[in-house]
């Protein structure tokens, strides 16, 4: 399975959401990282044939996905960010309906729905109305819906947003289980969601792909160095204003900072091993002075 994005641009009434994007994906888990408004959802919608690119094309094993139509969508599982459903349907009815529009035969669908309900832990809720589910349960129904046709391409748009930490971990495990032998693209702005499960990380900013590669490679390519530094309170605040600060922790003697910078920010700074969080900050972060919320 190869999904090739060729020079794809999407413009909404002159505002570009995705610009000249090129990338090729094969089986594996791809983590799409980017801030709000980076264009993640727009890109995913194009990959799901929901939106036509203004420019460029997307090829699935060499064929244009918009030409392939139903043949392409047959391979697809999609969990939208803003996941809607039919509030008066029961979970089971909902899944059976989605199975039918996904072209899964009724008998197969029945079995599959049973399996998936076990897998996502919704067996007890199968006769509950969708409107009565909690946020986490809805997400799980959403994942089940996306998986119902054994998709070869699974696209998950912020599948973990709004989940509590336990649910988030369970979800992450579920996704890594499901990821075998298929192409999974999942977007998030939470680095820890993808750190352990993604084979490839895509960093997206203002509609462009700023960097992509395996987590190790991306970490190795980090443009800044990571520094640890303990300072008195006043000095620490002014230092944090000057540099991208990954972390600021109060200590009895003042503050301990984790700073991203190409050169040594302070004579006392000690270089540290960078992590994916640092990469994220290095590309997307602002200096604390521009965003007081950090302190």
């Amino acid at each position, binding site marked *: 399975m190869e999904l090739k994005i060729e020079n794809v641009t999407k413009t*909404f009434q002159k505002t570009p959401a995705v610009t000249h994007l090129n990338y090729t994906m094969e089986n594996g888990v791809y983590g799409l990282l980017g801030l709000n408004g980076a264009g993640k959802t727009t890109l995913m*919608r194009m990959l*799901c*044939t*929901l*939106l*036509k690119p203004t420019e460029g094309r997307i090829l699935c094993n060499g064929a244009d996905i918009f030409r392939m*139509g*139903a043949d392409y*969508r*047959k391979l*697809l599982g*999609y969990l*939208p960010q*803003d*996941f*809607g*459903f*039919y*509030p*008066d*349907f029961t979970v089971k*009815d909902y899944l*059976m*309906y*989605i199975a*039918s*529009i*996904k*072209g899964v*035969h*009724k008998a197969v669908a029945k079995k599959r729905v049973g399996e998936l309900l076990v897998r996502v832990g919704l067996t007890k809720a199968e006769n509950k109305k969708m409107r009565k589910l909690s946020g986490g349960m809805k997400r799980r129904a959403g994942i089940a*819906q996306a998986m119902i*046709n054994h998709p070869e391409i699974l696209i998950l748009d912020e599948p973990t947003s709004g989940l509590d930490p336990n649910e988030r971990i369970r979800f992450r495990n579920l996704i890594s289980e499901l990821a075998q032998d298929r192409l999974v693209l999942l977007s998030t702005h939470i680095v820890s969601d993808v750190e352990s499960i993604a084979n490839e990380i895509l960093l997206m900013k203002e509609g462009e792909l700023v960097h992509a590669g395996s987590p190790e490679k991306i970490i190795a390519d980090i443009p800044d160095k990571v520094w640890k530094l303990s300072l008195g309170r006043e000095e620490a605040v002014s230092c944090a204003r000057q540099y991208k600060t990954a972390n600021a922790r109060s200590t009895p003697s003042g503050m301990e900072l984790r700073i991203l910078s190409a050169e040594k920010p302070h004579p006392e700074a000690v270089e540290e091993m960078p992590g994916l969080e640092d990469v994220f900050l290095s590309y997307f972060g602002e200096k604390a002075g521009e965003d007081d919320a950090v302190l």
Partner: protein
Amino acid sequence: MYFYLILERKRGKTMLYYEWKKILVKKGTKMALLVLAAVLAATCYFAIHDVYYVDDNGEHVYGLPAISRLREMKKEWSGPLTEEVIEKVIAENRRINDTKEGRADDVQSSNIAYGWKLGFHDIYYLLMRSFCKFREADYYKPNSLMPEDARYFYGNRVRSLQEWLEEPEQEYRFDDEERAWLIGRYEAVETPFYYDYADGWKQLFAFASTVIMLMMLVLAFVCASIFSGEFQQKADAVFFSSCHGRGKAVAAKLGAAFLFVTVVYFVTVLLYSVIVLGILGADGADLPIQTNHVSWKSLYSLTNFQQYLLIVFGGYIGTLFFSLLTMLVSARTKSAVLAVIVPFFILFLPSFVGGADMFWVDKVLALMPDRLLDMKQCISYFYLYRVGGRIAGSLHILPGLYSLLSVLLFPVIYAVYRRMQVK
């Protein structure tokens, strides 16, 4: 191959089943159906309560208790409506007018006298239509008739039409060929009529358009959210990214909507007919519609039952057309509100532009789809059109025209919806 086809059919059925369920489980649908039930109950009540007779004290007795008495009175006059019968009616009417009660001025006495006339009151009304000018309706006119006037009864129908056509005002409305056609239609109606008690049909017709029109609005309300609902519920992304989301799933939606409209329409109409005819009686199905004075001037040779079929099927085509139009707007704009405005707009269009009082405007309005909801009105229209060189009334044009447009709307909605983008 055959196996494959069966599987395909089955899958289509599953989709259809769930689309049907989607419509039914909605709160809006349940409410709409309740409203429809209430409308139906109220209409049946009015249709039946409308029937009355006048007792010996001059009191009106309405509804159920009146039915058998009135029926008995009218049945006395049933039979071919020959010159002799007309003579008898005129004579009997004069006799009652000459009684003490008939001459009295007080309300009670004149009500008593009126009560005596109820048996032949339908025929009294026909006399009014026959002996008044074409566009005139003088309720007291028959009181001035003499039994020997009876021989003009049927001839008047054609004669008053001829007189009307000769008025200068009609000069530019009809050409010679059309005049001849109209007169031909009138002459083609077979006389003498057969008369019988037919209040069941009369009441059924009187309220049919109310039921059908309100039902159309209720159905349009439900249909308005079928296509836009996917967007409003944010289920669009999953829907359109599914294998059949831009194909069979859309067809299933259309199919479910069509089934819903059809089932609700015919169940409602059937209930309405069974209740009204069941209570008032279905006698007089074979009577010409001209025996009901409101259709005296009709151009069409139809029986009550034929008119009933026309009203039911015309109403169905109209309702279907409006539902489809609503769905088209809903599918295109993603807005149920805009969609539901459309039928209202078309329904009230005549009240905006009809005031112009121009013949050609009325002529165009007589071809609007809302007329299908009130076929009985079309049956009395005098607007003529040329279709392929032949003269036709709106009754000839409407059902075919809107059946065709409805059939065309299916693929249009399908094509519009399957191309929608999810933004």
